[in-house]
């Protein structure tokens, strides 16, 4: 085969030089490993945004400032579907666990154990269900026009819709089934990620 090739077109095929591969790959993996380590210490914030998959989030306790919540709907494959959209300007979550199913495997991410909670900025979650064992709201306004919500600048619902907002919130034993989107910048101390069951 190589002989035929080289007769018709010279130097037509190539190979991977594995030493060169190592020269490129080893430093890259080292840098990536350093980034993973820094992220696991909470030194680097990472951006997370997932949509289109069922995404389960649980946390031992959520403390947030700048909280907005309003109804919305997303157009899923089975037609429009109502969601609760929660926006938190700045949140800290202890014992965070997120699991997402990508194709046949379920990835499970845990962080924020051992007294150093996960912090997240501009967290926006479209949840199809949200439960907590206890919720405390400070300075809550219920029934405000969703278009005029102001606690998390840049995020607001449809004018005329129902909305509520609060200066700060505390939710214990949070469980959220997020349907379409979660976006935010996370610092993830004590990050561990692996394949396994859901949270």
């Amino acid at each position: 085969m190589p002989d035929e090739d080289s007769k018709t077109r010279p130097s037509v095929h190539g190979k991977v030089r594995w030493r060169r591969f190592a020269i490129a790959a080893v430093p890259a993996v080292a840098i990536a490993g350093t980034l993973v380590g820094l992220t696991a210490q909470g030194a680097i914030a990472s951006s997370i945004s997932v949509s289109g998959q069922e995404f389960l989030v649980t946390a031992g306790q959520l403390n947030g400032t700048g909280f907005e919540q309003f109804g919305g709907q997303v157009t899923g494959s089975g037609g429009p579907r109502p969601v609760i959209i929660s926006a938190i300007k700045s949140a800290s979550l202890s014992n965070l666990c997120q699991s997402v199913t990508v194709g046949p495997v379920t990835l499970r991410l845990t962080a924020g154990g051992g007294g150093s909670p996960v912090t997240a900025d501009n967290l926006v979650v479209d949840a199809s269900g949200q439960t907590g064992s206890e919720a405390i709201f400070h300075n809550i306004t219920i029934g405000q026009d969703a278009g005029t919500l102001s606690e998390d600048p840049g995020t607001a619902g449809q004018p005329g819709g129902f909305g509520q907002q609060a200066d700060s919130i505390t939710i214990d034993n949070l469980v959220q089934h997020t349907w379409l989107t979660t976006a935010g910048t996370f610092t993830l101390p004590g990050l561990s990620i692996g394949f396994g069951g859901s949270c």
Partner: protein
Amino acid sequence: MTRRERWRGWRRSRPFWGGLLLVLAGLELVAIPLSGVLGHGAIKLVIYIGIGGVFGVLIGLLLIAAGIMLWVNPVHRVFYGIAGIALGIVSFPASNLGGFFLGMLAAIVGGAIGFAWAPVEAPPVPAAAGAIADEEPSAGSGIIAGAPGDPADETSGADTFTPDADTFGADAGRPEEEPADAAGAGQPGTEPAGQPGPGAGLSARPAGR
């Protein structure tokens, strides 16, 4: 030549697997933040995704572009390979922990394969060998290729460069294509020129100076 042979020839004449891995990494990175939009047409969600989603999509698209360019323009494989590696590393903080590691790893491996790929000269006739070796030195070996490559007449070079040929042989022992070269031991002067540059260069230098 059948279609299958042409396909195989096309694959082998470029860093095909490196490019494929880069394209797959890019698709994966794009799919996680955007599958709701692409699958369900929920354009309004982009508003909520925000800057994280933008970075994820941008990195993914650039990775796809780098992979395709590895195929159509393999001459610049070093650039596209390094770009793919860098994008893969950046994707870790910028896009869902590198697509939950999968996209990041695929980009690093694909980029490194693209970077490490090099054409093999398999000269059927010794006369052609010299010409090919001269016009296609691999990028890294260009500097040191002058030493073993300069003696254009291989017969004299074979004697003077015997020690070099030994070090090269020891270095390049792993690639499987070597048997062909070993058989053509008559022209050791030309073969090293096409061999992997950096490793050979490092070992040749202490011997020379």
